[in-house]
């Protein structure tokens, strides 16, 4: 009995009332290396089983495709990151508006966008809507659709953050005499950001990867270029390896940056 209890305390599952114990940094480093090697081993084993004639030469030969595509994806992602955050914030605020129409509009926007596959949205936006208004820029349509898509999710994340700020805080803000916008700026957002950031990190990472879907309207992004090389040279696997690393190079810094921000914005309640 006593034994099983200790096992439960120190074991695999963490009890809800305890947080992980702080560890010394050599122990942390050691465990990271072990975990990394463990996963490497599995991958190595899997690839070793594969009977495939690797032809890495194509990567060097067609490296310009990859570079061009990677920079295009960087461009699309950066613009969409900013745009989707703005859309998300506006939608979150509009969703709390006192105008019923605005609230209904935001709700419809969020539920439609979240429920329909991005693939469908991108094709629809380009082949139907953009075509109808004779708007020919694939890139602009792609970026805008992607931002609208991510913005819907981001607005829900931001809404959660805004709602996490207690009613007493809003009351204090009112008592002090802040206007509605000052209350957002000085009271709500600085407190909501803590709640928003972890979700936002995940969303940003998804957005970068989702940008690969824009290749279906022939936006020449990273994925599109890799697919071109793959079909030119019949070397699917070789082309997907740089694709994997290329996206990681974009997503990891975002995750690390937001973790860092979280630490900086930490305050006790």
């Amino acid at each position, binding site marked *: 009995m006593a034994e099983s209890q200790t096992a439960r305390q120190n074991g695999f599952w963490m009890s809800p009332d305890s947080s992980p114990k702080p560890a010394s940094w050599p122990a942390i480093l050691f465990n990271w290396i072990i975990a990394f090697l463990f996963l490497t081993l599995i991958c190595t084993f899997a690839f070793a089983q594969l009977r495939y004639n690797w032809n890495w030469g194509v990567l060097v030969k067609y490296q310009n495709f990859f570079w061009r595509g990677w920079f295009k994806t960087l461009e699309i992602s950066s613009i969409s990151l900013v745009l989707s955050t703005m859309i998300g914030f506006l939608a979150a605020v509009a969703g709390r508006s006192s105008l019923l129409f605005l609230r209904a509009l935001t709700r419809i926007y969020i539920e439609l966008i979240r429920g329909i596959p991005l693939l469908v949205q991108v094709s629809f936006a380009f082949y139907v809507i953009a075509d109808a208004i004779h708007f020919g820029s694939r890139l602009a349509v792609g970026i805008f659709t992607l931002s609208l898509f991510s913005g819907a999710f981001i607005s829900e994340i931001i809404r959660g953050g805004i709602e996490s700020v207690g009613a007493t805080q809003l009351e*204090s803000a009112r*008592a*002090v*005499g802040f206007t509605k916008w*000052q209350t957002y700026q000085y009271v709500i957002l600085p*407190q909501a950001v803590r709640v928003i950031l972890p979700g936002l990190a995940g969303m940003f990472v998804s957005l970068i990867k989702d940008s690969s879907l824009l290749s279906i309207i022939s936006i020449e992004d990273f994925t599109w270029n890799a697919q071109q090389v793959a079909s030119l040279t019949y070397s699917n696997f070789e082309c997907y390896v740089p694709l994997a690393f290329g996206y990681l190079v974009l997503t990891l810094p975002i995750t690390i940056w937001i973790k860092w921000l979280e630490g900086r914005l930490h305050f006790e309640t």
Partner: protein
Amino acid sequence: MKLRVESFTKSFGAQRVLQDVKLEFDDVHSLVLIGPSGGGKSTLLRIIAGLERPDSGNLFLNDKKVIYQERELLFHRRSVGTVFQAYNLFPHLSALQNISLPLEKVHGHSRVEAKRTAKEILDRFQLLEHAGKSPAQLSGGQRQRVAIARAISIRPKLLLFDEPTSALDPEMTAEVLDVIAELRQEGRDFVLVTHQMGFARSVADQVALLSGGRIVECGQPQQILENPNSAVTKQFLSRILKY
């Protein structure tokens, strides 16, 4: 201050919280509102603070009518200082910033000026050494004192205290009540909602007892607390003074 409340009525949904509340004082420095919970005293205070609108009725402060429209109320709230039970302070700001930010953003002081004013006031309340601390690092009593300092910093025409000590232990309560008593000495005008009868007696010019959304009795503290006329007041006092 000259304070006139003309038959305030207020309901939340089906529940009537204030019913035909009338008060009139030609010259009162400190008005203390007492009464059982749910009797309407906090609601009355919040309407005076401009945080809540009455369904009907008027408020005159120093002969000036308070207009219950959002735009006018914003200016009204900026001219009074309100202190709540707890969680007054913004947790992401330091004690100093809690005072200086409203001065800067709401009252148009320059950043340097706002900081200086905030420091002076913290110094006055022996809180200067805590200026850089966040609310979480302060004791409950210190937090309420910072909240009072913030309320005073804007030079309000009226201070409003909504049970400022009910979330505090006795020692911290004393620390906060000392500050309020000091403000009373300075002759500042305030309205206070409290359950501390002893304190009500020592600082009040006038005491009003609210129960069931009505003013049951209003007058000098000695009279109300020692020789109440109304049965409701007697019952309330006997219950609250029992232990």
